């Protein structure tokens, strides 16, 4: 079989307005400095985009990029990233997805695709080993994501939008198989370009540049993924829904638009319940041994079982405990192509608006009622759905309720209430794309009590470290699930007594951050890339990517006033007697660590140290 190097350095540039298709070679410096995935996608956009453009105009640039791991046997090496300016937040966004499209893109010999302009009528982009073409998609426009992929499966592996993307719902998703790139509305960016989807079909074996080094590192990594409690047992047996009992018990899972600390009916929506009463089989992304996804039987219908975020935002956040209903809505969201996190937050906000008489509707907490038809109305922008399609921030600007509008920089919160894990609050406030759980996620460290859930001690260091390490992982690209065995399945972590780990993390955070175990990441990535990347370089790549995105957002007007949390989370007590989130105190320390000025802008010296060319 034909072989393709995992780092091929070939990227295709498509202009949908003119129909031009060119191939470019990734500059050596860009590859070394930004690795691939998120980092390289952002750098390619930075080199091409003008500040201030409308995200839904032809001027926006969408990049789909694989990582060096994509298509290799590296754990969770089946993922790719989409990057563009977000129509939900107005700043830059990346969204990650498994499935099989990215692998086929790589097999065809392309590391990524840059998409400019807007087609005159609906099109899709076809990628094979023979090249890239723009094809007519008139007959596909209007199809939902599952139907399209089923109807056109002989063409290859798809990444598509549904009706929500076509109708420019600001949190429209991109779907590949039944995996979802949900966050920040990049499906609407595709819709705005009249781009229904991309399909890739190629046969080749993706090989690391240094095969011996990679094989050696791979053996160790695979062993650790299997040995780790989370990736070896919990995720395999329960999927991400295992978080329901963990975060629900820890008063972190949102309940009734973030007004209650605990959902009394929590067991009814737990992973344990799914396992006992609905489980049919596991499913997962290309080459993944964890296979955290599952298919369930819900009222005699086989459906993709909802993930934690969906269960929390469409379940406890709406005070709903009927798993079959949540599974039905999950499928509707996937078919229509919408982010369940933003949708759940938006419906929860609308329920509270209704409760307060600020926007009358049939939406009520605890009532499953017409939610499925509301989801359809959002996707097709009908009636109330047209308002809800705008997301929480814009809804609050139109109808009021800013004080209980749960978003950061316009992106609705993931399912971790930071009043029970304050470092996560700093993570949300400073994450480049808004309130994501995939940048600076400290909730598990705080729930596990290595850092205290409340207070500020050690939080700024931990958030910065996690943001930087995650940005490299998102560039390599590893699934976030793979981070924990790499970080924790090592003798230093396992053999150090708990009290010492806690002491170092809380009182010597700089030591903790500097000594974090990255050797497995470094070895795997070094093997794939064909040159050695050490601990220091690995860390610096993450810091560079984080600061590049920050700088790009500063050009769009982002500053320290945007680095905040919703009023409800800063001002309303969730758990009696629990201390409030001391965001200002953590932020001051965080800015200093980042090398940013008081306005939240990276200082010239910081950009220079990281080799970020200012434009």
């Amino acid at each position, binding site marked *: 079989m034909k072989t393709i190097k995992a780092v091929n350095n070939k990227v295709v540039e498509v202009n949908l307005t003119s129909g031009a298709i060119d191939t470019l070679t990734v500059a050596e410096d860009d590859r070394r400095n930004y690795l691939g995935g998120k980092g390289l996608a952002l750098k390619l956009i930075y080199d091409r985009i003008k500040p201030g453009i409308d995200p839904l105009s032809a001027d926006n640039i969408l990049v789909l990029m694989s990582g060096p791991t994509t298509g290799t046997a590296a754990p969770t090496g089946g993922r790719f990233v989409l990057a563009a300016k977000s129509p939900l937040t107005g700043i830059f966004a990346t969204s990650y997805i498994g499935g099989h499209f990215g692998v086929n893109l790589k097999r065809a010999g392309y590391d990524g695709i840059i998409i400019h302009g807007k087609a005159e009528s609906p099109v899709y982009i076809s990628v094979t080993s023979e090249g890239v073409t723009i094809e007519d998609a008139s007959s596909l426009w209007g199809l939902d994501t599952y139907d399209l992929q089923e109807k056109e499966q002989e063409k290859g592996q798809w990444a598509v939008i549904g009706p929500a993307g076509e109708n420019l719902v600001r949190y429209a998703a991109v779907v590949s198989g039944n995996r979802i790139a949900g966050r920040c509305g990049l499906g609407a960016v595709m819709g705005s370009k009249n781009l229904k989807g991309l399909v890739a079909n190629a046969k080749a074996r993706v090989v690391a540049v240094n095969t011996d080094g990679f094989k050696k590192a791979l053996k160790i990594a695979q062993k650790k993924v299997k040995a780790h*409690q*989370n990736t070896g*047992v*919990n*995720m395999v*047996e*329960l999927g*991400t829904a*295992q*978080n329901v*009992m*963990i975060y629900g*018990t*820890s008063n972190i899972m949102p309940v009734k638009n973030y007004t209650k600390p605990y959902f009394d009916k929590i*067991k009814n929506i*737990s*992973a*344990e*319940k799914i*396992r*006992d009463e609905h489980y049919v089989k596991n499913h997962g992304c290309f080459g993944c041994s964890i296979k*955290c996804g599952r298919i369930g039987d819900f009222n005699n219908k086989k459906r993709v079982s909802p*993930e*934690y*975020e969906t269960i929390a935002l469409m379940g406890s956040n709406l005070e709903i405990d009927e798993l079959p209903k949540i599974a039905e809505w999950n499928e509707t969201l996937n078919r229509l192509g919408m982010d369940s996190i933003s949708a759940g937050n938006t419906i929860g906000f609308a329920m509270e608006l209704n409760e307060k008489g600020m926007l009358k509707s049939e939406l009520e907490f605890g009532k499953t009622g017409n939610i499925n038809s509301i989801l359809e109305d959002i996707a097709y922008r009908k009636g109330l759905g047209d308002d809800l399609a705008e997301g929480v921030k814009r809804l609050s600007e139109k109808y009021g309720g800013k004080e209980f509008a749960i978003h950061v920089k316009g992106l609705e919160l*993931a*399912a971790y209430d930071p009043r029970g894990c304050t470092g996560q609050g700093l993570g949300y406030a400073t994450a480049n794309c808004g309130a994501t*759980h995939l940048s600076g*996620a400290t909730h*598990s460290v705080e*729930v*596990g*009590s290595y850092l205290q*859930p409340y207070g500020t001690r050690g939080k700024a260091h931990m958030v910065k470290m996690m943001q930087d390490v995650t940005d490299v992982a998102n560039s390599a690209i590893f*699934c*976030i*699930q793979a*981070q*924990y065995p790499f970080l*924790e399945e090592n003798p230093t972590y*396992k053999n150090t007594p*708990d009290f010492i780990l806690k002491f170092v993390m809380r009182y010597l955070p700089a030591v903790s951050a500097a000594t974090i175990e990255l050797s497995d990441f470094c070895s795997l990535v070094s093997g794939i890339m064909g040159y050695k990347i050490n601990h220091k370089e690995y860390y610096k790549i993450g810091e560079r990517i984080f600061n590049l995105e920050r700088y790009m957002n500063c050009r769009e007007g982002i500053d320290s006033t945007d680095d905040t949390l919703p009023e409800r989370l800063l001002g309303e007590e969730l758990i009696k007697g629990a201390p409030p989130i001391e965001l200002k105190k953590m932020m001051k320390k965080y800015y200093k660590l980042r090398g940013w000025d008081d306005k939240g802008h990276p200082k010239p010296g910081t950009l220079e140290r990281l080799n970020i060319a200012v434009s």
Partner: protein
Amino acid sequence: MKKKQIKVTVELFGGLYVKLQNENYDFETGIELDMAEKSTPKDILKALELPFFKTMIFFVNKERASANTRLKNGDKLICLTAASGG
């Protein structure tokens, strides 16, 4: 002298629920165990033939607790395994 006995209700979730082999366990109510006075969550896991590892989380009567918290008669213990992602 034989230690005084206490009754503790135990609920297990995540990997612990998966690993438990005890037909008396009920997902809705957990299991009631007779333990020696001053037993700890670690002792409970041992009694249920379950492993202990670092990333576990314990709550006693809805308050955070450690693996070495001494339990009292009538306490309700929740044992969880930490997780990530979503």
